[in-house]
């Protein structure tokens, strides 16, 4: 049961003296800690004091205030919210995997190294690339990795002046942010009337300053870049490399491979395409795949297989650009993705993308009855972007529609992105939704469109069935409060 309104915090439930965990008795002779005189904390830390039962009840109560994929459809565009197989969670918790200290020498961690190596090879096959790094912790770190790899190659080629990264105006926000973090400059490309890369604009802007083009394919409108071979050719002729943001790889598996389209490097999101849970915002994993030209620059560490069949971690030397995390990466996430590929097999992996594409096109057809679908000149891939423009003119904005969907028991799509669509509703159903589920979602969307026409206040007042009503985001900024205030007791 879900509780409505204000809930106490864990600090409100605290009472001095309560304990939630039992530690072993100290069974070694004690050292006098007087060497730490003057360095010790005085007064309390301010952590709560609750029993295990109270703690569990508090967080289970909180959990009931979350929407989640096991509750219903979660059609966030570009987020690929698919079902997360249960057994893969069990696997990642096997003591043989989760009990490994990261400083153990290779001979003690052969099972994990073998999985990392084999997963790299599988992802290489799926993307059509020679080499894969599993190091990046998330998509954005994968982007940074891909750009650093390109930058390192260009430096070696003596082309340091190439510091511009071209990207369409429909790109994910992480793309420009990653380019800047890699010490490069952003050059925006416009989209043409088809919603695709404007080739004229690309020809004009690709040149001696171009380090790379960053492109999401299918793009954030859910459209496949039909001119992809021409696009990659133009950039290569200008001397640049082409980076694919693989956030939308769920559209392409077993159907087409970035490596065969002329891309030089791409990242994948294991927490999207490869079914690992999103955890309320992470941890994810953002492997990077690339051509043999770029492979030497991939970060440390890498796993190689020796002739004797043993696996080895390479953590030093060579041309690697460096490292972005203390240890190998989000290994626990990689284990689940490896299990997923094995569970699906080659036919199953292709079937994922086929069903994702069919589901998106089906939903697009249903929604087009009431919603404008800009750039709708043919089939979309695994997602599409509708516009709430018509509804906005009638008095309810896309934000209102999103909130009203919550009352219908559905999660909302991604809203106001991509920026090139007015009142955008970006919808990605994924292959794990049944036709019944898609019908129900479409019915909710169409019903909301009718409400906008007849009873708009139902939409603008939404949500009413959630644990809290619409929240005041402006006030959250104005009266910034990101930690619970605490009247720290006076020191003794």
């Amino acid at each position, binding site marked *: 049961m879900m509780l409505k309104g*204000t809930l106490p915090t864990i600090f409100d439930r605290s009472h*001095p003296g309560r304990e939630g965990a039992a530690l072993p008795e100290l069974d070694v002779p004690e050292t006098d800690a007087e060497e730490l005189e003057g360095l010790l904390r005085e007064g309390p*830390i301010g952590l709560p004091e609750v029993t295990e039962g109270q703690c569990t009840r508090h967080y289970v109560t909180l959990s009931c205030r979350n929407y*989640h994929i096991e509750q219903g459809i979660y059609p966030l565009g570009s987020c690929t919210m698919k079902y997360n197989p249960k057994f893969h969670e069990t696997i990642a918790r096997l003591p043989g*995997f989760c009990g490994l200290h990261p400083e*153990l020498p290779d001979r003690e961690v052969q099972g994990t190294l073998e999985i990392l190596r084999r997963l790299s090879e599988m992802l290489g096959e799926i993307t059509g690339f020679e080499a894969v790094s599993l190091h990046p912790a998330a998509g954005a770190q994968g982007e940074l990795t891909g750009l650093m790899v390109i930058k390192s190659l260009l430096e070696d080629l003596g082309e340091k002046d190439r510091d511009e990264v071209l990207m369409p105006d429909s790109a994910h926000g992480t793309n*420009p942010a990653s380019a800047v973090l890699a010490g490069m400059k952003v050059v925006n490309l416009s989209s043409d009337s088809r919603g695709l890369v404007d080739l004229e604009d690309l020809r004009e802007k690709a040149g001696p300053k171009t380090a790379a083009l960053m492109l999401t394919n299918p793009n954030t409108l859910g459209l496949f870049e039909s001119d992809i071979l021409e696009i990659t050719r133009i950039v290569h002729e200008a001397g640049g490399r082409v980076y694919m943001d693989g956030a939308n790889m769920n559209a392409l598996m077993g159907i087409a491979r970035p490596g065969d389209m002329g891309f030089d490097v791409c990242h994948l999101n294991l927490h999207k395409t490869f079914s690992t849970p999103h955890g309320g*915002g992470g941890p994810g994993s953002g492997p990077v795949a690339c051509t043999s030209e770029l492979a030497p620059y991939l970060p440390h560490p890498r796993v190689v297989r020796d002739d004797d069949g043993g696996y080895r971690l390479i953590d030093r030397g060579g041309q690697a650009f460096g490292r972005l995390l203390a240890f190998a990466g989000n*290994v626990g996430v990689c284990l689940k993705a490896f299990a997923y590929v094995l569970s699906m097999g080659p036919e199953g992996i292709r079937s994922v993308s086929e069903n994702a594409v069919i589901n998106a096109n089906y939903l697009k057809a249903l929604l087009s009855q009431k919603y404008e679908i800009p750039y709708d000149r043919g089939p979309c891939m695994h997602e599409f972007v509708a516009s709430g423009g018509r509804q906005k003119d009638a008095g309810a904005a896309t934000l209102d529609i999103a909130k009203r969907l919550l009352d219908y028991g559905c999660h909302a799509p991604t809203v106001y992105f991509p920026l090139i669509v007015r009142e955008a509703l970006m919808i990605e159903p994924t292959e794990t939704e049944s036709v019944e589920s898609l019908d129900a979602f479409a019915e909710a969307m169409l019903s909301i469109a009718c409400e906008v026409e007849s009873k708009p206040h139902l939409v603008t007042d939404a949500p009413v069935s959630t644990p809290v009503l619409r929240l005041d985001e402006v006030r959250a900024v104005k009266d910034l409060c990101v930690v619970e205030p605490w009247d720290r007791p006076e020191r003794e």
Partner: protein
Amino acid sequence: MTRYIPNQDDQRRRMLERMGAGSFEDLLAPLPQEVRLDRELDLPGPVSELSLHRQMAGLARTNTGSEKVCFAGGGAYDHFIPAAVDHILSRSEFYTAYTPYQAEASQGTLQSIFEYQTMVARLCGMEIANASMYDGASAAAEAALMAIRVKRKDRVLVAGTLNPRWLRVIRTYLDRAGFFVGEVPFDDGGRLDEDALEAQMEDGFSALVVQYPDYFGQVFDLQPLAEKVHSRGGLLVVAADPVALAMLKSPGECGADIVVGEGQSLGIPLCYGGPYCGFMASRKKLARKMPGRLIGKTVDRAGETGYVMTLQTREQHIRREKATSNICTNQALSALTNCVYMALLGETGLREVARQCYQRTHYTVRRILEEVEGAAVVFDNPFFREAAVLLPASGEAVRDAMLDRGYLAGIPVPGLGEGALLLSATEKRTREEIDGLAENLAPVCREVAT
């Protein structure tokens, strides 16, 4: 078809009809023929759940390291994790949710991360904390970049006593963004070289990054360092061990401006290095320069308390190339792990963990010095839960030989001498295990040395 895809052939046919497509191939019209894959992917599988279990359990068994008695630290520690932690995390409501973009339907994630931020800030003695970074090392690199945004000097100084892995991460981030890293060496006594620090500060810098306790476990008062750094116009970034903070004076109290660290110690399994969880806390006045997500408290239309992602105009999805970082997905579930762990352990529990780590590590060092002839501590300063000992044999060879006896004895640190081994004991290491380590080290050192 597979167990994770519900629609069957007849249903797909009906769906294709509804959208006016003859077959699935029609939907691929936008893909030029040349880019279509004309063969099946070369992948193994599909395998049943039972077969997958057998394969994975077999691979897990070849991870012999998971059974060794662990005395290694270096940024990852073998702590006790109460069972309730995993039970709470295993709630689908938490682990299968996305980033809380629709706040009204994500109050569970949002409130728990708000509580996490509060606990982190209190532990660090700071006013604010964010919703997590990837790991401690990348959090340190992001803190260095944040300091550059605040102070606008393109150089950051890093104490040589910082975890070398973290130093490499900071270097990677800063080098590529076009900034500079100056390493401040430490002297023979294990202390930061004051003259070198003075000289490096002369050249202009945005911040000094220092670890607390340092990589070798040493504890020094941060306050004089903070005063020195501030007097030269820089920020003090402290990379802290969260367990140590339950016992030691908080960095905030000592004058730190930004505090980062690795949250693995707080309830996260070792799992060969990840997923872990970086934390970041700072002074409130730096909030707008902070990277990553921040959860803030607000009210709904009826005046009830609720939580939202806030100050989003710092972030990449709004600010794009002007964002404070490119981070999007962070380590939310790991942050929740930290939160639940800290709630369960609580005020007294976390202090007790810290006390036991301190006591057991000190006992370990003492026992080694008693048992192993010629062994010595590398530095003679106060240490917390990690110490570098110098053995009369190669550290790497000793570690390998000790593995055969069932112990991960520590991490070799050849930079401190060939026989240097960095070791740590948590509350999980019993007196028997510690005695066993020391008693086995003695013959192993003799064997290896000959």
